[in-house]
Structures are given as structure tokens and as C-alpha cells.
């Protein structure tokens, strides 16, 4: 098979931690045409090499960390990475992305991706540079948080801040917390579905990739430059330029107004202090410094130092919207400086911010209502907004101390173990993952997406720049179950394409037409729009076939009682989703071409997507 020549380095790096073996493997053109790159490429290795019945912490599981066809090119948002593995929370296929610089640096070192298999007997980190690849001793890094690890590795290897990209696990990953993530480049994270726990199970502390010097060959360099400019203009214009200028820092009050801010574990939708968290106010009040990813001109990502309140002088990153919400409205905490501290603590311990927020909020509601006692919580008084108790319980989870050992298994496990009324307070899906930091009772399409997703987090999202080519309902009523099912089904594949390009959503905005031009200018594959869309849908269906064999059943595609409960106040209080759920799922399955009883793609769906071989393997 012909090795891919353009838009790719033509090879991936393989690391077997059990044997301590490192080798290169060629990437062929047919693979890229079928799986595109990034998430798709990771899925290819997962389905070929990891038996679906393998447990997530088995050394046979692989950990894929990779770039895409646009990685290393001067197109904003394309220095990101995608992580693919069998995740700890669902024990199924996982895909989660992080921004930063590693995707670009890795390709400049000569690799599209790193695929780690096996498990090391002692702690290691992987060092990649122009000069080769080494497995380094990480024993001195054990117990260090993610920011400390980044600093220590750069110091040990003699690299300046932007000379190396380091992604690592913190104590949570080392201790196999089920919602541990992988963090790097000062707080960017690939954090969903316990990818950090998988890394911990392999005794792999970090990936350290130097800023390489090899150029990525492309078929049409002039066109790539033009697409880079167009992408910047798209980002500047989209949504009135708010993401470009403010990242997600302005979202929290907006979410509250529309009723999709999660407040005190879905017990209300009113958060009176919302305006204190407005990005304009916070960036003016605290010291804030833009810290962009490679080739990106936006002000999406900032470093921040708190200048007033109990955490005055604390420096870290500016929380993203989901982080702000997880450590403020969700836990009844009203001080922005404290939110900056807690959000960074979660990152440093190496945990996924949303699950951390859900589980702390669940403990608080259960404590306030008497479902969990102070004794059960190791002496902590988990009242709403009790910051000292929050800080301690987060550490207890990361180090699996006391009741933290139960909470470290995630919301679903802890709630089901406790049972009774406490179970009815917990927010999760039947598969074991929990939602992003929103109240999806005000965003029905994302509740559906979270529940049916095969990645362990949102897989589709309804926002696409080219709504006409995805046949999106217009205008759309976000509380109309038929339109919600249509939007979710029709746009399936759009987000997956971005994740295969490994392009930040806040620069791509799922502009499939521009992405088609980009992939063709980079690779010379001359794909058609239909081919690209089909590739996105193919990867979704391949993950589904894998997950069904791994134990997924349609009855697990259901929200927990609290997750789909009727809001008690706010603008969506008279809009319950539960009465429409069965009809919505029936229509969604039909539009997806899936069997309603088994969840399996129908023969005609399999044939249309050209995945008969994979369906046969996982029948």
C-alpha cells in the first residue's frame, strides 16, 4: 500500500511499555482516506488491536495520542491532539481532544501520532524530539501535579516554555481515578472518559514532545495559507466574534439567562451572582495574559492571576466556561477568585472538571438533605459553597482516601452504591459517563447527544457552519423532540470530521466546506464533500459497532432520573424532556439507520458506509 505523502509525516510512533520497545510504522494513503486522521486514525488502531471485551486497565488496551492532516500547518486550531482509547468510565471507545501545541510539535518531530500499548513495571515518560525517541525514568515525578510535571520535565531536558509540549497525568491519574484526564501546555486537557486513568494503568506519567523542525509536506501550500487566513476571519466573525475575543469567559451569565446553567446540581436554575463571573469583569479585575495555541490569534485562552479575595496572588489559567460553572454555580460558590483556584486545583490534580463538579455537587445536595452524613464524608461538612470542604474532598478523591475512594469511581458508581434518595440526585447516563457542564434540560439536543454518543462525551453537537449541507432543521425549536432528533441525526459526522482534522471547535465551527478544501490542499486526496461527510459518519458507526461488542445496549442510552427531570424554575420550567424521550429515541434510531432493539447499524447502513468487514468482525 502506498505511504501517504502529503499532509502527513507518513508514519506513527509505536511504544510497547511492557517490552520497552519503540518503533516506527508507516501510514498508508488508503487508511487516511478511510479514517482521515486524529480520532478516526485512533479508532482504526483501537478496533484492530484491542478486543472489545478487554477491560480498560488491561495492558492490551492502547492509548492513542495524535494529530490530524492539518496538524503543524499555519491554520488556527490545528495544533491540537486527539486521544483515543477504551475509556475507564464507559469501558468503551473514547475520543477526547486537547488544544495547545502538541499536535504541531509532534508532526514537526516526524510523527502523526503516538500509539502506546502494554504497561510499564516502573513509571516512565515518553520523550520525542528531532533526535529520536526515549523512554525516560519518571520515578521522581510520581505524586507531582500536572503543572509541576510540565515544569520539571522541561527543566530536566533543558527546554524553554514554548520549546516543548508536555501532557501528563496528575495524582488522580496515578491513582486510577475513573475520571482522570491528561493535561498539558498550561492547563489544556483531554479529559473525558478516564483517559488519564488508562495512562496511569500503564504507569506512563507524561508525553514530552520537543518543538521539532521538520516541515509537513502539503500538496498546495498557497491554498493552505489562504485557508489559514479564512479560518481566522471565520473565527473573528462567528457569533459576533465573542469566542475570538473572549473565549468562553462571557458564557456563564448567558447560560443562566437561557436556563442551561447548572446550579446546585439541577435543584434550581437561578444563580443571582452570575454577573460576577462575566469575562469582561474578571479579565479587568484580575491580571490576565493571552496565551494562544500555535497559529491562533484569538483570545480564547488566557493565563490569570487573582488580585483580590482569599486567593489573592494565586496564578494559573483562566477557567473555561465549564470550569467556571463547575466550581461556582454547581457547588453554590460565589467568589470568582476562589473559582480560579478550584478550577486550577482540579486541573493540577488531573481530574475532569465536569465530573468533579457533578460529584461534589451531588455530595453537597445529599449532605444538605441528610442522605450522606458528616461521618460518611470523613468529617467534611459538605454545605453549599463550603470551599475548604470542597478542596479537601477533591484531594481525597485524587488520592482515593476515605470516601474519596468511592467517589473516585464516578457519579454513577457512587450514587448506585449509596442508593435510595441519593441515587435520584445524581446526574449521569446509563453508560457511565456524565454530561458536560450544562443543564441539558435547557439544551435537549446535547442531552440526546451525551446519551447516544460513542465517545464518552459530546460527539455531534448541532452547531455547524454549513447547516444546508447537513440538512439541519431551520428554524429549529430546541424543545421540539422531532427537530431535536433530526438535528442530532442529520449532523452526525460533522463534529467527528473536526476531531479527525483535530481542529479546535472554536476555530473550525464545524465548517465542513472549508475543512474539505483544507484536507484536499494538505493531502491531495481530492475527496468529495460526500466522501468527507461519509467518513465522519463511518467513524461514528465503527465506534458504535465496537461499543456494542464491548457491552453497550440500547437500554443504557438513558439519562438518570435527575438528569432528565423537570426544571423547578427558570425559563425552561415547563419543558420536560422525559415524556418525549421514547418517541425521540425511536425517530433518532430510524434516522441513523440503527436497529431499535439491538442498537446495531442496519445492513443497509453498514453497506452504505463501506464497513462490512468491521461489522463482520464485531457481529
Amino acid at each position, binding site marked *: 500500500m502506498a505511504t501517504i505523502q502529503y499532509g502527513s509525516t507518513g508514519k506513527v510512533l509505536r511504544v510497547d511499555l511492557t517490552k520497552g520497545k519503540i518503533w516506527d510504522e508507516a501510514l498508508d494513503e488508503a487508511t487516511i482516506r478511510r479514517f482521515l486522521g486524529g480520532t478516526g486514525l485512533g479508532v482504526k488502531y483501537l478496533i484492530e488491536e484491542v478486543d472489545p471485551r478487554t477491560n480498560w486497565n488491561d495492558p492490551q488496551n492502547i492509548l492513542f495520542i495524535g494529530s490530524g492532516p492539518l496538524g503543524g500547518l499555519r491554520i488556527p486550531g490545528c495544533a491540537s491532539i486527539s486521544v483515543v482509547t477504551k475509556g475507564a468510565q464507559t469501558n468503551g471507545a473514547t475520543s477526547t481532544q486537547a488544544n495547545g501545541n502538541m499536535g504541531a510539535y509532534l508532526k514537526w518531530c516526524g510523527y502523526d501520532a503516538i500509539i502506546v500499548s502494554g504497561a510499564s513495571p516502573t513509571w516512565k515518560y515518553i520523550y520525542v524530539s528531532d533526535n529520536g525517541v526515549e523512554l525516560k525514568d519518571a520515578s521522581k515525578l510520581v505524586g507531582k501535579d500536572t503543572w509541576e510535571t510540565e515544569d520539571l520535565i522541561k527543566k530536566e531536558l533543558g527546554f524553554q516554555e514554548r520549546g516543548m509540549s508536555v501532557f501528563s497525568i496528575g495524582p488522580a491519574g496515578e491513582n486510577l481515578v475513573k475520571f482522570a484526564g491528561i493535561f498539558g501546555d498550561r492547563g489544556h486537557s483531554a479529559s473525558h472518559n478516564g483517559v488519564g486513568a488508562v495512562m496511569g494503568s500503564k504507569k506512563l506519567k507524561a508525553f514530552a514532545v520537543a518543538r521539532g523542525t521538520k516541515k509537513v509536506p502539503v500538496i498546495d501550500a498557497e491554498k493552505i495559507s489562504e485557508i489559514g487566513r479564512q479560518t481566522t476571519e471565520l473565527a473573528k466573525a462567528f457569533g*459576533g466574534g465573542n469566542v475570538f475575543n473572549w473565549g468562553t469567559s462571557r458564557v456563564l*451569565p448567558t447560560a443562566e439567562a*437561557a*436556563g442551561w446553567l447548572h446550579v446546585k446540581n439541577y435543584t434550581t436554575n437561578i444563580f443571582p451572582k452570575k454577573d460576577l463571573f462575566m469575562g*469582561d469583569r474578571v479579565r479587568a479585575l484580575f491580571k490576565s495574559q493571552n496565551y494562544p495555541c500555535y497559529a491562533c490569534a484569538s483570545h480564547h485562552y488566557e493565563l490569570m492571576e487573582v488580585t483580590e479575595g482569599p486567593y489573592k496572588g494565586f496564578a494559573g489559567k483562566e477557567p473555561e466556561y465549564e470550569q467556571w460553572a463547575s466550581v461556582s454555580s454547581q457547588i453554590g460558590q460565589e467568589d470568582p477568585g476562589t473559582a480560579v483556584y478550584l478550577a486550577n486545583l482540579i486541573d493540577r490534580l488531573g481530574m475532569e472538571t465536569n465530573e468533579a463538579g457533578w460529584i461534589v455537587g451531588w455530595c453537597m445536595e445529599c449532605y444538605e438533605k441528610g442522605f450522606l452524613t458528616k461521618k460518611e464524608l470523613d468529617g467534611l461538612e459538605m454545605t453549599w459553597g463550603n470551599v475548604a470542604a470542597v478542596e479537601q474532598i477533591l484531594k481525597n478523591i485524587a488520592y482515593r482516601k476515605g470516601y474519596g475512594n468511592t467517589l473516585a469511581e464516578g457519579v454513577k458508581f457512587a450514587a448506585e452504591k449509596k442508593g435510595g434518595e441519593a441515587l435520584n440526585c445524581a446526574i449521569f447516563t446509563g453508560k457511565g459517563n456524565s454530561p458536560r457542564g450544562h443543564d441539558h434540560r435547557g*439544551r435537549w439536543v*446535547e442531552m440526546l447527544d451525551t446519551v447516544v454518543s460513542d465517545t464518552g462525551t459530546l460527539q455531534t*453537537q448541532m452547531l455547524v457552519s454549513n447547516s444546508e449541507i447537513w440538512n439541519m432543521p431551520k428554524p429549529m425549536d*430546541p424543545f421540539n423532540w422531532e427537530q431535536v432528533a433530526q438535528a442530532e441525526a442529520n449532523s452526525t459526522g460533522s463534529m467527528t470530521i473536526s476531531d479527525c482534522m483535530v481542529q479546535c471547535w472554536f476555530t473550525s465551527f464545524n465548517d465542513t466546506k472549508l475543512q474539505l478544501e483544507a484536507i484536499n490542499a494538505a493531502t491531495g486526496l481530492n475527496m468529495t464533500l460526500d466522501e468527507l461527510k461519509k467518513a465522519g459518519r463511518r467513524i461514528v458507526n465503527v465506534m458504535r459497532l465496537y461499543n456494542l461488542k464491548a457491552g453497550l445496549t440500547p437500554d443504557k442510552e438513558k439519562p438518570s432520573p435527575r438528569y432528565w427531570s423537570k426544571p423547578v424554575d427558570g425559563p425552561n420550567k415547563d419543558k420536560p424532556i422525559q415524556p418525549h424521550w421514547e418517541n425521540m429515541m425511536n425517530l433518532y434510531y430510524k434516522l441513523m439507520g440503527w436497529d431499535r432493539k439491538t442498537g446495531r447499524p442496519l445492513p443497509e447502513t453498514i453497506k452504505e458506509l463501506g464497513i462490512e468487514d468491521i461489522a463482520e468482525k464485531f457481529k
Partner: protein
Amino acid sequence: MAKTKTLLTRAPSGKSPDTSNITIEVLSWLKEDFNHKITDTVILKESVSPGTSIMELLRTLAERYPAFARKTFGHKDGLTEYCMVILNGEIISPLELDKKTLRQGDVIKLTPAFYGG
């Protein structure tokens, strides 16, 4: 401290049988499209004729505020991608904007739509 500014775009002259007085509160970054800072409080007082729909009201506002017009009606995907309407505390479906008519004392909130996070 947020700056408060109240605009009387059409000063109501008391209750008239021919008009309904309504209040519009503009939220979050939509305020910039109404020539204000995001930290301002932006409240518009309007008088509308009987039978005026929410969509007609939005089009009237769009005539006065070009940035609002450009980003809502000027967007190729229409209003719903950018602006969400809350009438008396309840989100109104984009499919209902033409049908819902305004009544005396109605309070409308305009807030940006946002996906992802």
C-alpha cells in the same frame, strides 16, 4: 459595579387602548449590538400596536440597530443561531415568533444563543 442605563426609545404616554407598553431587556453580548457595553443594564421601553408579533418587534429593533440586524436577520441561517427570546420568563420557540403577539406589560429578554462550551 454595572452601569445602569434606561432607554426610552418610544416614550409611552400612559395606557392607551391603541397601544401596549412592553419592556425589553437586552442581555450579555447582545448589548454591544445595541451600542452598549456588556456591563451596562440595557432596558428598552416600547409601545406597540395591538396584534404586533414578537418577530415584528425584532424587525423593528433591527431597523434601529444595524449590528443587531446584521447578526440576526443578516445571518444566513436566520435569527435562531444568534438570538434567543424569553417572554415573561419563558423561552419562545423560533417557530412561534411570528404567531405570538405582544400584550400590555409583557417583558421580553433577548439573549445570545450559544452552543458547545
